[in-house]
C-alpha cells in the first residue's frame, strides 16, 4: 500500500509542469500520515526517501519557473508565501531552501553548457571545483550581505546571488560573472600578496620617511609597484578580467540565440571601436570608472604617484594584463579541471 502511495505521489506530481500548491500540500499531508502509520524501519525509510525526492522535484520546478520568468519574488514575501506553500512544515521549508542552493547552481551550469563551446568549458571548470560554496538569497529568511545583485567573497571564496535583484534573462550572465571571479588566478594570488602586513609596514614607513620617490632604491620602487599591482588585481583589474570573460561568454550565448540582449551590456559594447580588441576596450572603459583610493596610506605621495603611473601604463595595449591560465583555457577551447 505504501509503495503504491509513493508511486502515485511521484507520478501525480510529475504530470504538472507548473507548481501546483494544492497538490503539494495534499502530498505533504499524506507523507506525514503515512509516516505515522508506518511500522517497520524499511517502510519509514521508503517514505522518507520518497519525500526527499518529492521536495527535490519541487526545487526543480521552482528553478524552471524562475528561469522561464513565470514567478516573481518580492522583498516582503518569502518563496513559500509566493508559491502558496506555507503548508510545508518549517523543517521541510528549511530542507527545500537548502536544496535550492545546489539545484540552482547545477541547473544553471547545465543551461550555460548549451550556450556554446567557451561557455561549456567554463561550466565544466566550475563543476570540477567541488569546494565552491554557492548561496541563493532573497527568496527566504536570510538577508543578503550587501545591496549588490551578487558577490564573490575574496577570502572564503563563496558566492551569493540575490534573486530579488536579478531579472531572469540576466541570471546566467551574473552567475557566470561571479563564478569567473573564482577562476581568476591573478586575483586569488594577489589577495594573499596584498595582505602581507610586513611589506605594508615597510612601504608605509618608507613613504612617510622619504616622500620623494626619487630617493627610493630600485628594489623599493619595484616592491611598491608590485604591491599596488596586487591591490589593483583585487579590485579594478579583477573586474576588468572578469568582465572581459563575462562579455565573451555573453556574446557567444547571444550569437547562438540562447539568451536575449541585455540593454545595459549592449550599452557598454555600443561604443567599442571596431578595430579595438574587446579586452583593451574594456580596460579603457572601466578605467574611467574606477577611482583611486585617497585615504591613508594611499594619500602618501610615493604611493599615490606610483598608483597613477601604473594605471597610465596599463592603458597602453602592450601592457595589457594577462587573463590567467583558467581564462586562457576557456578562450583556447581546451578543457581544464580544478580538481584533477
Amino acid at each position: 500500500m505504501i509503495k503504491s502511495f509513493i508511486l502515485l505521489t511521484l507520478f501525480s506530481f510529475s504530470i504538472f509542469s507548473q507548481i501546483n500548491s494544492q497538490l503539494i500540500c495534499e502530498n505533504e499531508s499524506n507523507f506525514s500520515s503515512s509516516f505515522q502509520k508506518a511500522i517497520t524501519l524499511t517502510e519509514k525509510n521508503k517514505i522518507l526517501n520518497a519525500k526527499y525526492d518529492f521536495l527535490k522535484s519541487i526545487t526543480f520546478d521552482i528553478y524552471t519557473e524562475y528561469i522561464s520568468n513565470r514567478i516573481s519574488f518580492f522583498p516582503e514575501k518569502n518563496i513559500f508565501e509566493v508559491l502558496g506553500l506555507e503548508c510545508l512544515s518549517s523543517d521541510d521549508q528549511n530542507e527545500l531552501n537548502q536544496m535550492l542552493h545546489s539545484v540552482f547552481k547545477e541547473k544553471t551550469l547545465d543551461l550555460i553548457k548549451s550556450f556554446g563551446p567557451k561557455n561549456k568549458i567554463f561550466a565544466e571548470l566550475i563543476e570540477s571545483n567541488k569546494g565552491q560554496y554557492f548561496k541563493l538569497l532573497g527568496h527566504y529568511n536570510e538577508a543578503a550581505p550587501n545591496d549588490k545583485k551578487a558577490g564573490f567573497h575574496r577570502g572564503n571564496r563563496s558566492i551569493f546571488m540575490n534573486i530579488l535583484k536579478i531579472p531572469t534573462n540576466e541570471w546566467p550572465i551574473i552567475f557566470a560573472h561571479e563564478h569567473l571571479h573564482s577562476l581568476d588566478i591573478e586575483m586569488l594570488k594577489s589577495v594573499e600578496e596584498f595582505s602581507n602586513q610586513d611589506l605594508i609596514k615597510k612601504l608605509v614607513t618608507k613613504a612617510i620617511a622619504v616622500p620623494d620617490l626619487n630617493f627610493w632604491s630600485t628594489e623599493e620602487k619595484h616592491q611598491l609597484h608590485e604591491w599596488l599591482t596586487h591591490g589593483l588585481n583585487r579590485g579594478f583589474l579583477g573586474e576588468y578580467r572578469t568582465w572581459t570573460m563575462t562579455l565573451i561568454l555573453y556574446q557567444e550565448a547571444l550569437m547562438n540565440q540562447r539568451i536575449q540582449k541585455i540593454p545595459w551590456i549592449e550599452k557598454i559594447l555600443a561604443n567599442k571601436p571596431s578595430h579595438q580588441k574587446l579586452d583593451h576596450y574594456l580596460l579603457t572603459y572601466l578605467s574611467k570608472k574606477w577611482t583611486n583610493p585617497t585615504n591613508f596610506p594611499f594619500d602618501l605621495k610615493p604611493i599615490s604617484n606610483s598608483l597613477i603611473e601604473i594605471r597610465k601604463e596599463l592603458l597602453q595595449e602592450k601592457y595589457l594584463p594577462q587573463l590567467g591560465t583558467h581564462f586562457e583555457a576557456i578562450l583556447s577551447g581546451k578543457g581544464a579541471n580544478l580538481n584533477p
Partner: protein
Amino acid sequence: MNCLKIIFALTTFTLFNAQASDPRSGPDLSGISIPQSVDRLVSTEELKNVQNKCFKEKILKPLLLNFSPNRLDFLDNKNEYTLSSEIKASSSGVRFSVATDSYLNSSNSYLNSSISSPIMFKYKGKDHQLSSFSTLKIDFNLFVPESLYNHTILFIIGFDNLDQIQPIKFTLKSSIPLLEFAPGRDVEAFGELGEVSPKFIESDIRIAGKPSKNEKIYSSDTGQLTSLTLNTENYVNCLKSELANLP
C-alpha cells in the same frame, strides 16, 4: 615626532583593514580601484561552529525527530549489537552523542547542548586522541554515563573532521541500538587553518561533499545493517551554506 606619526599611521591602517570594506567582489562596473580590506579565510573556530550547527540541525535533529527511541519498535531484545567500522578521525577527536527517550520527552530539549555537545572519548579512564590508535575496541559501558543505563538509547557517533585525517578501525559492542554516523567518509575538509584577520592566512579550506542519502543501522527486520535515511547531502549543503554566510 616622525616616528610617532608612523606608529599611529600603521595602527590606523591595521585597524582600518580589520574593520572596513566589503570583502566581496560583485558585478561592479565602478568602484575604488584597490579595495582596502585585508581579505581573510575561514578560521578554525568558525569552521567548528559551522560544523556543530550543521551536525545538530542536519543530523541530530532529523534523526531524532524521525527515529526517536520511543519509536524504535523495530529493535528486538538482543543482548548485544556489534558494529565494526572504519572512520577517518582527526586530532581534534571523535564526537559521541547520546540520545535518550527522556531527552526526547522533554520538549525538544535534545537540541540543547547537553545532548549534542561532544562527549569526548575516554578509554579506561583516560582521554584519548583517536589518531593514536590504528585499531580500537570500545566498551560502551566505559564512556556512557551510568544515569542513562535505564533509558532507551540511540548512540550516535560523529567526529570533527578538521585535520590530520587518518583511518581508524574500531568495533563497538553494546546492549543498546547503535547508529554510526561518520561524516568524514562523505565530507572532506582540506587545508591548514590558522588565525584570522587582520593577519592573512596562507591557507585554504574547501568542503567537498560526496553526498549520500543512506547510512546504516542495525535492524531486527533483517538481522543486518539496514539503510537509514540520514541525509549527508543536507549536511554538506549546510556546511557550504553556512560558510558562504560568513562576513
